[in-house]
């Protein structure tokens, strides 16, 4: 988990702050915690917490869009709405607000790329896309090294991949 302030160092100080029945969490690295006076809880005021917390993160999303209030064309959800609720309007919002969300996701999660389960229907198409990429690379390499025998073989494989009907017949 990254520090929510400098977004560089790993967070080691974890603060939870409850205001108006809403819980806010902030993760800080040791240096930022010292800078903000968080290492000494008696001097740390709630106002400071507000600046650091989840609300601050949502604010950041709004600012990165250059002041214009971006709206999701599918569901009409705006960045102001996100700032208010911390939730998005529909799945498409992730594309619309992608730029601002990237930084937020980095502070929130272990990584920014999904590595877990994938629906089976998409898994096969994703595998095919990856195989295509790999074969194209192989082809380029074969041509570069003037290994035309290999290039012809790869080309045939690519052809087979492009016409899915041929694939099961071969098996």
């Amino acid at each position, binding site marked *: 988990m990254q520090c929510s302030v400098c977004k560089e160092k790993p967070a*080691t100080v974890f603060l939870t702050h409850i205001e108006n029945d809403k819980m806010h969490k902030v993760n800080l690295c040791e240096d930022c915690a010292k800078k903000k006076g968080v290492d000494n809880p008696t001097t740390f005021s709630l106002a400071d917490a507000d600046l650091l917390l989840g609300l601050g993160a949502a604010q950041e999303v709004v600012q990165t869009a250059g002041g214009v209030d971006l709206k999701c064309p599918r569901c009409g959800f705006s960045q102001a709405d996100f700032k208010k609720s911390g939730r998005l309007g529909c799945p498409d919002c992730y594309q619309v607000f992608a730029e601002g969300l990237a930084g937020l*996701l980095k502070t929130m999660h272990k990584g920014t790329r*999904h590595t*877990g389960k994938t629906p089976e229907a998409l898994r096969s198409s*994703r595998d095919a896309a990856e195989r295509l990429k790999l074969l194209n690379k192989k082809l380029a390499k074969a041509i570069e090294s003037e290994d035309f025998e290999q290039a012809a073989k790869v080309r045939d494989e690519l052809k087979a991949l492009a016409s899915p009907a041929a694939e099961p017949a071969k098996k």
Partner: protein
Amino acid sequence: MDLYEFLITPAEATRLHGPHDRIVMSSRVRLARNLKGAAFPGWAKKPERIKIMETIRPAVESLPEMKDAFSEVMDNLGALEKQILVERHLISREHAAKSSGSGLVLNREETFCVMINEEDHLRMQALRPGLQLREAWSAIDKFDSALEKKLDYAFNNDLGYLTACPTNLGTGIRVSAMLHLPGLVLAEQINPIIQSVNKLGLAVRGLYGEGTEALGNVFQVSNQMTLGETETTIVERLDKVLLQIIEHEENARQTLLEKKPKVVFNHIGRAYGILANAHSISSKETMNLLSLMRLGVDLGLFPEVNRSLVDELFIVTQPAHLQKQFSDKLTAEERDLLRSDMVRDRLKNVSRPNVKPPKPEN
């Protein structure tokens, strides 16, 4: 369908056992899923929410796991029924507040519970007694794989399953366990444990989840991060951490008995004294004292008492469960009187704690 007739009775529920159930009360794995091209429940208007539910509910009901399930829309459930479901940890407090456009599907064995249109279109959970995170994950994984053939999930290759709140993005998984940790609380070691668990990116919450107190020394431990790791990695990490917490709790109990036996006996003796003799008692006090009695049972101070007696009281003394047994609407004060009557009655044949236990039960 009548919810009260459908639900497993508290007595039956406390007879379910699982590994480490002396400390781990239950395990749960929840997955968040949403439909492609539809607004999330918090943003969708009522007609859209109803349409979404009408797509999801039959799909969920058609799964073999959901044969003879209890399936209902939230508008058809009364406030008391909803509160009972919260006290049984089957639905969240947030879901209990929903009405039109939200629903619930619960299987016979109460091992699968699906909330429709909570924060996400679908929140499916697998529940198991004791420490059984791997079993719960594999069960809900299979459930989800069957469901994805019937529903069009919102999924993106880079971001995974798309969820209403970015904190659930990716795997949409929340792996959690409910732990009874009276030893760590009495030994005043609970705070450093919570802090070190937090540092591993895991959350520690109270009895009813987010933002609630650890009533009865019951804590929920769960993962917070959902993106950038596989489900298995998350499950394995939590399992490892839980085994360590179990060890710390066992050590704390052992050390307390060796170093401060009087403190332990004092707490447990007083808990027994109040529970067995009070004529008015709040739900909160009951839970905290039952927790100490449960510890007493674990330590062999009540040789003739089975832990399920205490666990059952833990369930039936909660406000909605208590109210359910009486037809008239009770005030909080009336509930406190009736609660104490019930507890006294159930403990009438339980003798005082035996402070020279033969040998702690293992």
